[in-house]
């Protein structure tokens, strides 16, 4: 059950070993979260995340394995996660994603398929099942980790950006479908974050660390806002960027790279 500050008690994190997910988990667990189900691909990383969750105050941090390259596995994985939660789930975070390597991936249809599965198809199938279960429960929140890259897809990362764009638009409309049901959906659009996933990229404007992202998530849960921008200023930055004529957009992006 959530409290007045939107702090949940039972949480499922799909993609629980990512740096952003871990930062959010730490904050949640330090607040009111006592049970956090961590679903991920690497057992080793998951175990580290679980140990950390315990350290920060969780009483239970069960692990579930997840293979985001196989969309058919999304439903059983979600089922396992709900079982492991052991009670009404207050928040499900969809944090699966992979950046890939645009330069090589754009030549490779198999890589394109893999990126779509991990960044789009698997999450959408999982979301559909999560939505169904939370509606049956009559309460709960979903947090979809999207990206500012979804706002306007750029040439330098069109596979990742394109998949995130699809996920982002779909989630927004899914949130509309939940109006008045007791279940809600919020979308996190982080800018560039210093994590394992972006380790090979250079420092970008408005780049933050995962802990700042987690702070914005906690405020976003409290306010219930549909889109949580991290950092908040990006809302205004992208308000301008998304409407720039192509020539200017390209020039700005070239400079940012």
């Amino acid at each position: 059950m959530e409290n007045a500050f939107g702090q949940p008690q039972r949480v499922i994190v799909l993609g629980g070993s990512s740096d952003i997910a871990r930062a959010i988990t730490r904050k949640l667990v330090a607040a009111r979260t006592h049970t956090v189900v961590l679903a991920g691909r690497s057992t080793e990383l998951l175990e580290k995340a679980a140990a950390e969750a315990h350290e920060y105050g969780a009483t239970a941090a069960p692990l579930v394995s997840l293979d985001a390259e196989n969309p058919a596995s999304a439903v059983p994985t979600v089922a396992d996660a709900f079982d492991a939660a052991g009670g009404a789930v207050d928040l499900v975070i969809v944090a699966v994603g992979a950046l890939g390597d645009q330069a090589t991936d754009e030549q490779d249809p198999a890589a394109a398929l893999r990126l779509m599965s991990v960044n789009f198809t698997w999450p959408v199938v999982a979301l559909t099942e999560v939505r169904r279960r939370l509606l049956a429960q009559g309460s709960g929140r979903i947090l979809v980790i999207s990206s500012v890259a979804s706002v306007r897809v750029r040439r330098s990362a069109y596979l990742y950006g394109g998949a995130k764009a699809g996920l982002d638009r779909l989630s927004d409309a899914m949130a509309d479908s939940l109006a008045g049901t007791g279940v809600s959906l919020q979308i996190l659009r982080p800018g560039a974050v210093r994590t394992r996933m972006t380790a090979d990229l250079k420092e970008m404007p408005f780049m933050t660390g995962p802990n700042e992202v987690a702070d914005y998530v906690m405020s976003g849960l409290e306010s219930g806002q549909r889109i949580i921008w991290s950092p908040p200023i990006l809302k205004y930055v992208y308000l301008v960027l998304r409407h720039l004529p192509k020539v200017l957009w390209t020039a700005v992006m070239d400079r940012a790279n």
Partner: protein
Amino acid sequence: MARTRLTGWGNTAPGFGDLVTPRSVSELQETFQSHGVIARGLGRSYGDPAQLSGGLVVSNLGFDAVGPIAADGVVTVGAGVSIDTLIRWAMPQGWFVPVTPGTRQVTIGGAIAADVHGKNHHAVGSFAHHVLAMRIVTPTGTFDTSPTERADLFWATCGGMGLTGIVSEATIRLIPISSNRVLVDTTKHANLAETMAAMVDGDDNYQYSVAWIDCMTTGKHMGRGILTRGDHLVATDGRLDPPSATSLAIPVTPPSGLLNPLTIRLFNEAWFKKAPRREIAREHSIGSFFHPLDALANWNRLYGPKGFVQYQFAVPDDRGDIVEKAVSRLSSAGVPSFLAVLKRFGAGSSGHLSFPIAGWTLALDMPVGPRELPGILDELDELVVTAGGRIYLAKDARCRPETVGLMYSRLSEFLDVKDVYDPERRITSDLARRLHIERN
């Protein structure tokens, strides 16, 4: 699926449930065929005790009968009768409620479920002290109870936040009055310590006593207070008109941020300046003395869509220092709060989860928004627990589940009674689920 969105008065943590309004005991009994049922009155609790996400919320407003008042002031009323309705019925006949909270918009059922208190707790105790009998509908049957008949169910229900069953009617003893006025002495005090000293010194001379504390000043004026104390005006041919109906209303919810540290500080300053330094035996109307906020309907909307939380704690007499520590912590953090109310409590009732204990109680409203607020309230909880105090479940919307058992030592006994009358745990609420008020 059109479910009703329900919140407490703080407009936080909504619960979407199915709302029904039965009108008879048998209809009430039928609601327990569902699993997941909770009663709801007028929704003036601040948090989530009168809502249940995905469950059945049973309004008691259909139980609205008010009986004739006997010569000794005893009257039987439906649980959905509000204190406002009862006062309007009783005052012209020369009677008043023995205990009234700060708003008249509370049902008798709700007053029992929260075991409400007023400005006269030090003199006459809480609402439960004045309930002679009540009929309670539970999943295992309907029972007539009193402090001596099925006393376990009676006392578990007083302060039990609706978790033992649904009250359909109650018999209470009203107090005689001869006018609709209260004679009030008002004094202003430079800081918290002086305010508290004045209360200890003189409260026993009055039936009613309450202090308004400014939690936003720091330094030597921290906790400056306005103390108002009084008694019913005894008159030979006094007028007994009940309070006039609410005339002003906040029609829409303004954006968040209207009530912020600046505006609240300005309000507090103006309020403090306006109050007389000292005023003796001034006549106040019953409405303005007991229920000042009722003059503005939907005032809670002023806090905007994010809503607000109320924090109210009680600490024993010898731990008045906790009041000072709490005010100090809040004022140094700049957490905006007006309407901080300080009262003294006399001995508590026998309700297992009843809030009042002999000592001090401080209540304050804070807008949801400041990032450090959740952490500060958690700190205050710890202070309160270590001092042997508790927070008020009728106001809570954010406490840790682990602290409830520490604050309410009779929680286990309460759950034992619930086991008898609700063995399948059909009755629950968002509050019960959030605070884990259930046997595992």
